């Protein structure tokens, strides 16, 4: 069995059907957690720097972002 990438666990969830790739969430994340992926949608590049502040969801005009949960360790 091959080792799977468990590090992909993310709580900032992007609805790629709604996302318009404007980059606002990447631009305004105060902790530089989000980066634009190869598919031109944001992902949590530095997940464990997230302060679960909600800025990404707030600035998303397309309402494509949800904070599905808070980080597991504090949940």
């Amino acid at each position: 069995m091959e080792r799977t990438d468990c590090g992909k666990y993310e709580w900032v969830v992007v609805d790629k059907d709604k996302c318009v790739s404007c980059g606002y969430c990447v631009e305004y994340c105060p902790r530089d957690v989000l980066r634009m992926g190869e598919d031109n949608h944001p992902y949590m590049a530095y997940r464990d720097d997230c302060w679960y502040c909600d800025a990404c969801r707030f600035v998303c005009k397309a309402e494509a972002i949800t904070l599905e949960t808070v980080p597991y360790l504090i949940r």
Partner: protein
Amino acid sequence: MSVTRMEADVIVLGGGSAGTFAAIKAKETNPDCRVVVLDKGPIETSGAIGRGMDALNIVSVPGYGSPEDVVEALTKVTEGVIDQECAYVLGRDSLPIIKDLEKYTDRKPGDLFPLDSDGNYKCSFLHPTKKALYLAMDGEDIKRGLAREVRRLGCTVLDRTPACRLLTDENGKTAGVLAFNLRTGNYYEIKAPSVILTAGCVGKFGMPRDGYLSGIYEFPGNTGDAFSMAYHAGAELVNMECFQTNLLMKDFNGPACGYVVIPRGGYGVNALGQKYWSHGYWSGDMFLAVWREFTEGRGPVYLKLDHLPEPTLKGLEKILWGTERTVRGQFHKQRDEDYHCWDSVEQGMEEITLCSGHSNSGILVNKDTETTVPGLFAAGDCAAVPQQYLTGAFVFGAIAGRMAAEYAAKAGKPGKTVDPETAWKDIVKPLNATNGLPIEQVEMKIRTKISQYLTPPKSDPLMNKMLWWVDRIRREDLPAINVCDYHDLIRATEVASITDCAEMATRASLFRTESRWGLSHFRLAYPKRDPNWDRKQVVVKKNTSTGEMECEARTVPDFKWDYPERLEYEYPQMNMDIGTGFVHPQNDFVDPWMEEKYDREGMEIPKRLFPKKGNKKEA
């Protein structure tokens, strides 16, 4: 290495609450002033109030309180260890910044802040005075309003470009900064005669017990960089022994909402549902009371709201879930918690931090925000105006902006600094290392040590051991950090700052031979307040000749107002009689069996039995 070289008049290190106000006021003071703002994030969302704030926790406004009332409150909660002039200015200038905030956010009176029937800003009681000094705020958008004003005035904003070194010239004057962009890796060498430190508190200091490095009360970008830069530039720091021992919403580690809830009738109860202390103001005596509840088996403690009227509860949910830490509501829902239950908000004593806004620690400043280094100003959570809260960040940020602009207009160009090339080599070293230590593990190591060895009640042997750890981490770990990119490179600077702050906090704690400020400096070897320490600060600074950290006791500036210099509480007796334990007969110190083994085998461990693959029986 390509370095962008810039010249400026005023550099603002940290575009948070104090920094944005400083930049605005510097530009308003002198529109020709070249103001550069550096921040780890975008100034629209970075810092403690990126997602808004729900109150100005201390103000004096007409109809409610005077600047003298602010002095009275802060003289009591600092137990007399305060520059009263700073407290007076905090009260005096709170009304102008309220007006400024309404202007920057385009909000009408009565919208951003509540008004009473006389048209005054409506304050509530919270502090140990007979006057109401707490002003609620629906400040969801204030940071974006401030950022818009900074950009409109033409300040140069370098987002995601934190400073990593503060430069001084051969005369010890402020000369500029070195910085780099977290995404592009562009390097900046910015020369300026004045620098304003507004980089926040030491939020990443102790570890939260849930183990999540960023799961802290303060904004995680605030890692004591201003404290450390000021220290190395030769500035003095004070009250580093007065720890912020937060009572937080457990695990979430956001504020427990006490200041929003208490003025509306909520209060803290222990696990038995009993009110355990007379007030909910975040002074050391309240934290001492919480510690007592846990120590005597009546923890956890809770914030009780279930007795409040339904409209009040709904209003609290709107404010608490709509500003500052907006995922608070979701956190409750996931735990099936409901404010209609008395035990819905569990509180815990979480990570210790160093912060002037909520406690007393920081860079020594006077009422004009001057540090002891020429051209270096400080405001907000890194500048030691005790318990100034957000109000102080705005008030003293504004003063710092004006002062720095005026200073820069008179100052000549900065003199010769240390060779930046040497500094750059040191800064980028973690990028060039191979097979070094992961930055998150080094951060976790220093922060867990801080929690284990410094969390009050403070133990002298533990604190002395902490100094051993600081020395070891500095020698062995910091030089061995390896990072992969610029995002993580700044964390090497941050961890070094945290380590510096740990040493300052430890040495100051060992220097103050008494207990004071309740739990914040409850020292077991000196478990009582000592009148010889009244009105005395512990000043920490770097000996510029030896490079060593030094402490001295210094009397605060003369008092102009005669107010009580303590709160109503006592330290507990710590005579914990636990009996004698059993005593077995003495064993011999000499063990022939062990000695014979060593003589026969030396230090080798013989390989006696090997594992075998499969289920084959031993032959």
